[in-house]
Structure formats: C-alpha cells, structure tokens
C-alpha cells in the first residue's frame, strides 16, 4: 500500500455565527495522505489551524461510515463531492491529486440556514416527518409480524426509498433547492406497505404542505437529486408522490 502525500489549496466558507456575514477563505493544507477520508483531511487542516492559534472550521459529522446523514459539504460544486453513492465522510483523498484546488461550501437553501461555517440547520426535515411521515400506531397491540404477508417486490420498493439518510444533499444539489426527493422517499417508504395505506393520502397532503411552508423550491425534474443521493434513491418516488397528491385532491 503506497501512500502519496499531497499539498492542496482549499477555499472554505467561513461564517462566525448564524447572523454574521460569511466569506470564502483560502487555506493551504500539507501532508495529505491519499488514504485519508475527506473529513480526515478537514481534521488535519483543523489541527494545523488550531496549532497556529486559529479557530477550527466547524463542520457536521458523526458516524463517518455513510449512514448517519450528518456530514454535509458541497465539494467543488457537488454535494458530497460527486462520487456515486458516497457521502463526504467516505470520499477518499485518493480521488484528488497534488496541487488540486478544492472549494468547500455548506448546503445552500433558505430552509437550511447556516449556523456556523459548514454547519447548517436541517430541522425542516424533522418537521416534515412530524407532519405525517409515520404510521400512526402506538406501542403495544401490534398483530403478529407475519400475519400480513407483503410481497417481496413491494417490500423491496419500500426499502429502496427507506434507505434515505436525510442528509439533504438532494436539496443542496437542486437548482431550485427543492426537497422533493427527501419528502417523496419518506412517503414512498410508507406508502408501499399495507401498514402505511390507511393514511396514505392524508400523509402526502400534510407532508407537501409542510414542505412548502418550510420554503423549499419546486421540482423541475433536473434529476440532480438522484445523481448526488448517497443512497441512489430514484426520482421514481417523486412521480409516486405527485400521483398520490393528485389523487388526494379527489378524496
């Protein structure tokens, strides 16, 4: 296993607090190993900054294995950096080369205000789920899990949509900052299951209303969301959501 060391020039968005003005700042980071993940490279830069007495760059991250959905960086104009099915925490530096210039920015959307540097507030997603992204069942009294067979095909379609990690890359990538892929994925997960059926039309109505209230844009079928989704969720779910919402108008 070889280990090439790189020197990179970074342009990183810095903003001191929610209400402060922000700007891109330039940094040079040295001794970057090709085996580092992108976030480890950011750690490395932060160590350098702190050793110089500067404040580190704030960025969201947690599991660092591509499932928690916390990391959120637009790298060279593409959320998570543009490798199919990969979050920023799993993007490795071997995809870059010595001397590269890299732009790192936060998710940009009115519904995702910047809290500091690369950290944004994504509670809008929680509120959309709270509006209807669940099956209204209380704990206890559930029938036997095998009482209701579900065809493998439907279960798989449901699972395809349920894979969403709620990172918000779809919003960040969309020219309109639309949240349709996220919202529709949650609806599709539940609407493909018999357990989700009774609330199906109410669910899409409420989630769509909340989505609008949060200030996300409209869907223009650019399909950018699908291209950057780390879980490769298909825009099929958006068509399903639209159909259900249309049907809901007649109910």
């Amino acid at each position, binding site marked *: 296993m070889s280990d090439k060391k790189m020197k990179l020039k970074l342009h990183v968005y810095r903003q001191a607090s929610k209400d402060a003005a922000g700007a891109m700042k330039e940094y040079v980071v040295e001794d970057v190993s090709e085996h580092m993940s992108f976030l480890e490279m950011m750690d490395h830069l932060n160590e350098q900054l702190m*050793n110089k007495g500067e404040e580190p760059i704030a960025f969201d991250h947690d599991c660092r294995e591509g499932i928690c959905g916390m990391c959120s960086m637009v790298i060279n104009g593409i959320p998570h950096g543009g490798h199919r099915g990969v979050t920023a925490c799993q993007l*490795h530096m071997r995809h870059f080369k010595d001397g590269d210039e890299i732009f790192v920015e936060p998710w940009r959307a009115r519904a995702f205000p910047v809290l500091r540097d690369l950290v944004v507030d994504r509670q809008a997603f929680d509120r959309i789920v709270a509006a209807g992204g669940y099956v209204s069942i209380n704990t206890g009294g*559930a029938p036997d899990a095998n009482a209701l067979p579900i065809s493998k095909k439907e*279960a798989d379609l449901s699972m395809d949509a349920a*894979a969403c990690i709620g990172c918000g890359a779809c919003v960040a990538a969309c020219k309109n900052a639309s949240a349709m892929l996220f919202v529709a994925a949650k609806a599709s997960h539940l609407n493909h299951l018999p357990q989700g059926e009774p609330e199906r039309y109410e669910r899409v109505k409420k989630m769509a209303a909340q989505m609008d209230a949060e200030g996300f844009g409209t869907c223009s079928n650019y399909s950018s969301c699908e291209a950057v989704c780390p879980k490769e969720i298909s825009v099929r779910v958006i068509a399903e959501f639209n159909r259900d919402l249309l049907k809901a108008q007649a109910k």
Partner: protein
Amino acid sequence: MNLDAKIPEGPIEQKWSKHKLALPLVNPANKRKHKVIIVGTGLAGASAAATLSELGYQVEVFCFQDSPRRAHSIAAQGGINAAKNYQNDGDSVRRLAYDTVKGGDYRSREANVYRLAEVSANIIDQCVAQGVPFAREYGGHLANRSFGGAQVSRTFYARGQTGQQLLLGAYQALEKQVNAGAVKMHSRHEMLELVVVDGHARGIVTRDLVTGKLEAWAGDTVVLATGGYGNVFYLSTNAKGSNVTATWRAAKKGAGFANPCYTQIHPTCIPQAGDYQSKLTLMSESLRNDGRVWVPKKAGDARKPAQIPEEERDYYLERKYPSFGNLAPRDISSRAAKQVCDEGRGVGPGGRGVYLDFADAIKRVGKQVISERYGNLFDMYATITGDDPYTVPMRIYPAVHYTMGGLWVDYNLMSNLPGLHVIGEANFSDHGANRLGASALMQGLADGYFVLPYTISAYLATAKQPKLTSDHPEFKKAVDDARARMTKLLNVKGKRTVDSFHRELGVLLWNKCGMGRTEKGLKELLIEIPRLREEFWRNVNVPGSAESLNQALEKAGRVADFFEFAEVLVLDALDRDESCGGHFREEHEDQGEAKRDDEKFQHVSVWEWKGEGQAPVRHKEPLVFESFKPSIRSYK
C-alpha cells in the same frame, strides 16, 4: 451503596408477568402531571420517548446531534434477534435467553436476560406495524438469518441497514408525538450535568450547542439513553460524537458505574491505515457466513494473498473451533486474530490484519449471489480501501465496537440513584461480559418500548417527590458547575489540541487494556493516565468561546470526562482478576481461552465515585444463576 436488584420472586418464566401485575400504575388523569426527561434518541431513547408520551406523560427529549434520527443506533448493520421461531429450527424464549447468558460468559443478570428474550417477539411485531421494511421471502413472509454465532436463524434484518430502519421507526413514532404536542424535542443540546435534589434525580443541565446557552430542566424523573463509551479508545466503530459524559456526570452524582472493563472488540473491521485515522469502520459480521478467515502459516510472509498456496495458509478459526469455525463469537474471533498477528503472521501495513476471503464462496455460489448478499458491504470496503474484495481477500482487524458496562440498574432499569433510569447500551444489565451479534438493537428497543414504560410508572406512582422548578438552588449550582468547567477548559490556552490528547489516551488503553490485559500493563496505565490527564488540564488548547458553536469545546468536555472515566475502567480491569468474555486477563487463560473464576468473580462490580483525588470504591452485586447453570463456555 444500595445495590438491591429487586429481582422478582418465582420461576424465571413468570417473573416479568407477575412483576408487571404487581407494579403500581399512575392514574391516566395524573400522567400528564409528570414530566419525564429523556437524554439520547437512539433506539432506546426514541422508543421510550414515543411510548411514554403515548401513555400521557409530558416528555422532554434531548440529543446532541442535529436531528434525533442521527443517533448511532443508525449504524448497526446486521440485524435484530427475536425468539419468533418462524424457521421452526428449535428456537424459543428460553434458548435465546440461554444463548445470551452463555454468550455473556455468565456475567449478566439472568432474570433481565430472560425478560429481554421474552419481549423480543413483541419488538418485531411493533416494528413491522410501524412500517419497518424488514427483508422478506418471495412468499411475503419475514426472512431470517443466523448471525453472530447462533445455531438457529433468529435474526431479522433490513439489507445492511437494520439499525437505520429500526431507528427510523422509533424516530417517526417520536416525531408523531412531537406533532401531537406531546413531546418537546431539543436537538443540538448536550447534557452536561445531572441534578439531584434530596437524593432523587430531578433534572439536567444542557448546553445549546449552537448558541452556547446553558439551561436547566426540571422533571420528575430522568432517563439516560446515551449509549456506550467505546470512544474512550479514540479509535472505535462508534460515531465521533459518542461519549461518556452523560453517564459519567451521573456517576459523579452518585450513580454506580457497573463493569466498565467489559468492552467488546468486534472482529471484522477495516484495519487502521494511518495515524490520521479518525475512526474504524465495521464490516458486518454477516460476512463471516461466507468468508473464510486466514493468515499465512509462516511469520513475515510478504507475498500477495493469491501467491500463497492453500497448504501454506492457516484457516485458524476453522482449525481451532471446528464446530463454529468462522462463526465463532466476537470475543473469541477477535482474540484469535490478535494472537496470530502477535505471532508475526498478520497481513497488510503494520502486520495488523487478517484475510477474510470470499474466493471459495464465489466459486461455490457465484459472484452474483455473493453480490446480492453483501453487495453494499463490498462496495463500502472498496470505497474505503480502494481494493476490490471480489478479487482480493478483504483485510480485517478487530476494533472497539460496543461496551457492555454502563450505569448499574436494578430489574426496573433504575440506578441506585432514585429517579435516574438508564436504558440501552448506557446501562450494564443484559450482555454480561460479551454481547452476541444482533442483541444490542433488541435490548435498546426492549428497554424503550416494553420495559421502561411499565417500571417508570411504578416509580412515578410511588416516589411522591414534591414539584419543583429549575429555579431550585441545586439547578443553579449545577449550571454554575458546568460553566466553571468550560471556563477552565477555555482558560488553559495550552499548546496541544484536544484530539492529540484523546488519540494518546486511546493508544494507551488499546495497547494495555484492549484485547489482552495484564496486571503489569494495567498498573502502568494507572500511572500513565493520570499523568496524561494532568498534562491535558495544563496544556490543552481550546480555541473560541463558550457562547458560540464551538466543536473544540464540545470535544474538550467529553475528553476531560473520558480521562476520569478511563481510570475507573482500568481499575475495574485490574480488580477483575479473571478472564471472561471481552475481558481477557492474560494471566488467566487455558490454551488461549478465557478462564473464568466463578468462585471469586461471579458478581457485578459497581464503582462509586468518591471525589477528585480519592480512589473510587468497588461494590458488588452477586450474580445468582438459578435457571442457567454456569458452564465452561466452549465453542470448539
């Protein structure tokens, strides 16, 4: 320290149902007068929060992540066990309980374990009803697989994302209650203090991680569902934010910390690639169903794996444990990997790795089938390492994964501190000295959905504590304490970053209190850790202020707590002069296998904090096995 476990009388099969009947209830009209504070929104916290608010209690929930959905339960890949016996292969509540007690090397409380097995089936029902998309057979029924050393197929799964799907189920139930106005959710809030008034846990102090604001919250009871402390080792499979602060703060207020030395090292992780590494990535244990583990027979063999002929390979798990082979339990597989690497037969950089080879499985069932089974895991491995596991064997090495130790709780999941309930990985109760695969998800949800909602009602019905608000002087004092600690950290203005200290602490622990532990090494740690801690408080560099989003300050507070806690962990490891499960004292082995000492150590060790500069005191809860007689845990 009062360590009455309050295990109900009677045969093990009837303990829980009898106990439930005997528990006092809270009148429905009175429920809304009680406020429950829950910290943590993983499987245990989210499920408890949803369920308790459905019952009618006022619930306030806190998590440090930006959304409750991001708690680290989400990363569990493999599955969740349940004694459904859908496969008709002889599973039962008793067998699941027995496997779990034995898997825990007879260091867990059998009544708790039996209850866990008993409610396991309800969990699956509940999750399916919530819309958790478990894997299904073509006939439409739920699929199962065998997992983590079990002889029956009792593991339910959702692709490689079981934890995520279960957590989304609980998270959605929680959001449903938020929407109903029954739960108040506070994300990006970190608990910094537990508030105890008249001997009862009555609230917490949190820091708003965005604004830095310190706030006190008063309630009738506090539930900690804050997960494990694996990150004390710096490198682990835990999320970067996972920490011991909540439970350690509670321990410093009088809650006993049980069995801190029981840490689980997971055998199948991607080996460390360099010093900059920030975490280790787990590869699901399910890979061992088809992968064969081997190293070269010759030490220092630097040939590429494909160039090493069959007869020069040592499939050491199959050789040593013929009946379990590559599926031997976690602690055993991990130790075996360490052994061969210690012998100089490890592979990859630094010689810390073993092969997990799929060549035979691909030959047997075809690349297509292997890809269907493990495609996402293979992709993940390729993304991280740049190697293609279809053609080159994976390299794996054990890594810290789970901590069986935690705050001591009785049968009602309440700590020795009245009013403080502890659920999920944060408590100690169900896994003994080693946890079996697919059992953590089961325990988190069992505690949150089906155990705590009953037992907490009993506490609230009988505690009869006066109402109080956060204006009480104890709350004010706790806020001041939290502020003083932060100010102290910010004022050190030293030369080393928090991470550099944390990394060093991790290396110390991993080398001397990791997979193999000796009296000598542990005693050295008891000198080295305080020395490093002293340097930390003298030389740490925490930039920025306390009144803003300051990730360096967050880390500093957590690492400061890890430093104190690490010493107790090591003390416990030294005190437990036997080998059991994940705790392997090299002095106590029999041909490389852990050798228990039931005579002296069939007990839970519970540590009581005595204050700065004072030695913590060890108390014991003896373990009594009436239903599952301890035997030598053999997987040969």
